[in-house]
């Protein structure tokens, strides 16, 4: 039996106090934004191998999923889910170590940037082929169904582009057929790399696909944290109650390039000026101030705290060793005695 190990406690966020919940979510968003800004800067400073992919503009949607999940749920985050990861329990150090290629990170240098996770702690490391994580999370839920486990959900995120893949279709369909407690959050940020949604699908709204699969569909304005907390929280609850897969589609605008190597010059200026183009973090900050749930000093304190956390993580990870090719264990099998001795 594969042993599970829990490394970091995940803060349970189920609270009736809307203010507390909002603030907690906001602070995760802040940490996500600030840490990703640091990664982007490190990238432009030549300190990061491969790519950096940030979730700027997506934090409200992402954090809503993270705070709605509980310990024991299973989560397969995708590339713009820093906020959800942090809220679900991934440590900043794990993320930073993976980006900086530290041997001590969860992937030990064998995979990098957003391809990270701890399967036994309930969050699966993605593979690059979009859509592939939907069957994988469904598989975990399928196993739980066979084992008779109830009360847990599985969640994964995908973008507008990923909904075009065969794996998206097969995964969601299979989850529907088996009535699995899957929460599939589609962040429609209008662009898949440089491809606008007009080249991705022609249905009126992605949430209409829910009808096609026979599952529940939910729409939400991804820039509005309060709306996200409610809609996503509700979808998670529906799944948890056994109502089968829940498709959540949020409309937002990607506020960065596809990766930090991309300057996103192709994004339509009109979208940037529209309400969808507003920064969810800024809107949430304004909301806090308007509601007097926090003042600017609080926010400044939180911001500094976030900066300190990421600086600390970077300082630690930067000092750590990279993987050493000479001492690396070049074996891809768990069953070592079946390793083919005649291959170099």
């Amino acid at each position, binding site marked *: 039996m594969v042993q599970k190990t829990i490394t970091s406690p995940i803060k349970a966020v189920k609270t009736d106090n809307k203010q507390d919940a909002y603030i907690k979510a906001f602070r995760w968003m802040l940490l996500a934004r600030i840490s990703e800004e*640091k990664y982007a*800067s490190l*990238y*432009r*400073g*030549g*300190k*990061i*191998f*491969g*790519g950096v992919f940030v979730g700027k503009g997506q934090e409200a949607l992402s954090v809503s999923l993270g705070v709605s999940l509980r310990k024991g749920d299973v989560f397969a985050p995708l590339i713009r889910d820093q906020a959800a990861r942090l809220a679900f329990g991934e440590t900043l150090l794990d993320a930073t170590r993976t980006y*900086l*290629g*530290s041997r001590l990170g969860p992937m030990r240098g064998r995979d990098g940037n957003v391809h990270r996770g701890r399967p036994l702690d309930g969050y699966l490391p993605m593979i690059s082929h979009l859509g592939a994580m939907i069957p994988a999370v469904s598989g975990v839920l399928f196993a739980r169904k066979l084992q008779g486990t109830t009360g847990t959900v599985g969640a994964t995120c995908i973008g507008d582009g990923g909904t075009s893949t065969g794996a998206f279709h097969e995964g969601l369909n299979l989850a529907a057929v088996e009535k699995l407690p899957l929460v599939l959050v589609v962040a429609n940020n209008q662009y898949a790399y440089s491809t606008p949604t007009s080249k991705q699908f022609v249905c009126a709204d992605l949430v209409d696909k829910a009808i096609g699969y026979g599952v529940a569909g939910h729409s939400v304005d991804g820039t509005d944290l309060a709306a996200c907390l409610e809609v996503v929280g509700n979808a998670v609850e529906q799944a948890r109650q056994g109502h089968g897969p829940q498709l959540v589609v949020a409309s937002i605008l990607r506020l960065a*390039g596809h*990766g*930090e*190597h*991309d*300057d*996103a*010059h192709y994004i339509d200026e009109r979208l940037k000026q529209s309400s969808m183009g507003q920064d969810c973090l800024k809107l949430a900050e304004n909301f806090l101030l308007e509601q007097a749930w926090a003042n600017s000093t609080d926010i400044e304190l939180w911001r500094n705290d976030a900066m300190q956390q990421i600086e600390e993580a970077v*300082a630690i*990870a*930067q*000092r*750590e*060793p*990279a993987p050493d090719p000479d001492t690396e264990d070049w074996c891809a099998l768990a069953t070592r005695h079946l390793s083919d001795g005649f291959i170099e």
Partner: protein
Amino acid sequence: MPLIPIIMPQLGESIAEATVVSISVKVGDQVQADQDVMEVETNKAVMGVTSPCPGHIKELLVEVQQSYAVGAILGYLDVSVEDATRMGFDELAPAANTENGGSAPHQQTAPTSKKAVQPTVGGLPVPAHATGAGYMSPRMKARMHDLGLSAADLSGVAGSGAAGRVTIEDFEKFLAQLEQQKITPASSMRVAVADSMRRSWSRPLATVALPVNIDPLLTHRKATDPKPGPALYALRALAIALGENSAPAGRLIGGRIVHPPAIDVGFAVEAEDGVLVPVLRNVDKVKLKDLTVRYNELVDLARQRRLPPSATGGSIATVTNFGTFGLTWATPIPLPEQTLVLGMGAGRIVPSWDKNLKQFVPVTEANLTVSFDHRVLDGGGAGRLLARIAALLAVPGDL
């Protein structure tokens, strides 16, 4: 204050270089961490390059509108010691690099060019046919190596493979059959001679002969004390002839003839079940009477197998008196490192036509042979050499 480099970042997976489009700082400017110091353009985007930590610009190495490779050093930042250590720069010299997360990917530091590994063998020659009587499979070669055999040892094996190839089955059968016959060990001398002759035979060898009247030589010898061996007369004559023209004893290596450095000549002495070849040095410069004592000495030492190393090796030709066995004709094989061997047959009294007396008269005649590497020498050259030797032997007193 330590300097750390500002490096061209990797701006996208397949990007190899970027062009600087603007520089927003100058030397001496104070900058903060993560502050944009210049903008670069790839085919995908215009991006900012940031300073890694606070400091001031010490040096800028780039120009606007020029392209630089990913990892290239764009300038240097003068920073505090604690910042430098935090960034992981242990060396305080410029172009410092580290192994941990602080180093830049694809970094090119000082212009160290990668040395290409040069192959030691510039392509092995491919045999024209990998089948046929001469071909030995890897398995054959491995077995022969284990047993200390060479291709010459297999000359008695009939091949049943394609085009007469000796297969491993043929070989193993041959060995098995050998085991059933009487076997005695060969001396190391025998094995050494075998190897030497095999190597020599790899050249195209030919022999020419000239019958020579040796009565003058015999007469001279009778009247001399100590008596020089008949072979010594031939040896001295050979040396004089080679002293006049050393080309016949040259070696053909590649497209060039390597001339002998000195006229050192060896002579064959039978010892136990093999042959030793002691050497007389610079024989073209030493008269016959001065060679005799040394020659006799060397013959004795050889028979006792006590030749010192200085008395063997380095000879450029050899003389062999096969006449001592009563043989009138032979085709000796030159040493592998030499081009020719001069042979002397047994003397016989034969009738020879005397034009003056118009009748046959008895003379003592012996065959002189030259066996030679036909790549270096042709029949004509060999013939002329023999003729010269014969002429010299006609006046033994001048040798």
